[in-house]
């Protein structure tokens, strides 16, 4: 094991990025749970929304939100461009500098669209 692993130098952000994967698993399972309750009817759905008011759930969601945003920032703005091959079939990769603003714009657009629908602004 390298002597700086896991929390010294550049390993710190690498390790934190890896740990955030726990929230990907947990949040997926929670979305599955929510969809299942939605299929069970109104009382199950209302009970789920009430459970989400529990302070432990709220604290979990704050942590999950932070982990997902951190992962998004690292993935979109630090890793994605570097991981693209120089060519995909006949197509050349666009200049690396294009990727962060394009991905950032996509992130903002997707977030706004999702918020607008879930918030009830669009009926």
């Amino acid at each position: 094991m390298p002597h700086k692993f896991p929390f010294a130098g550049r390993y710190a952000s690498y390790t934190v990025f890896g740990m955030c994967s726990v929230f990907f698993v947990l949040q997926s399972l929670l979305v599955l749970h929510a969809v299942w309750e939605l299929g069970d009817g109104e009382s199950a759905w209302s009970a789920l929304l009430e459970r989400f008011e529990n302070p432990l759930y709220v604290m979990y969601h704050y942590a999950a939100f932070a982990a997902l945003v951190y992962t998004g920032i690292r993935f979109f703005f630090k890793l994605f461009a570097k991981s693209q091959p120089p060519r995909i079939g006949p197509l050349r990769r666009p200049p690396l500098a294009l990727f962060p603003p394009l991905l950032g714009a996509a992130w903002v657009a997707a977030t706004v669209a999702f918020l607008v629908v879930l918030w009830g602004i669009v009926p």
Partner: protein
Amino acid sequence: MKRLILKFEPVIWFSFGGGFMVGCLLLPAYVFVTGIAAPLGWLPADALAYERAHELGASLAGRVLLLVLIVLPLWNGANHLRHVLLDFGGQARDEAMATLLYGLAAACSVLALIAVVRL
């Protein structure tokens, strides 16, 4: 089991990348609305009412979106977690951990399909 996992590695890594895209693009907004704004009372009264939520979720686009929102980040998390455990624990337990994590992802993917169909 190790050979089976190796056979499916391309699909797993494809889901890993897709999971990052879907998870990072959509999950923060979902978590903010359902897990933070709703419990704190910031949403309009009927934003997450059952009738509205069911209508959104049970549409074709809603079902596909919910399925993708569950499955891709789940496989991403499972694969990423497997490699975190590899970093910390080495190769000795990799087969067992991979079986457990990918097995969980596979089982929950089937449950996700059932969940969206039964909406």
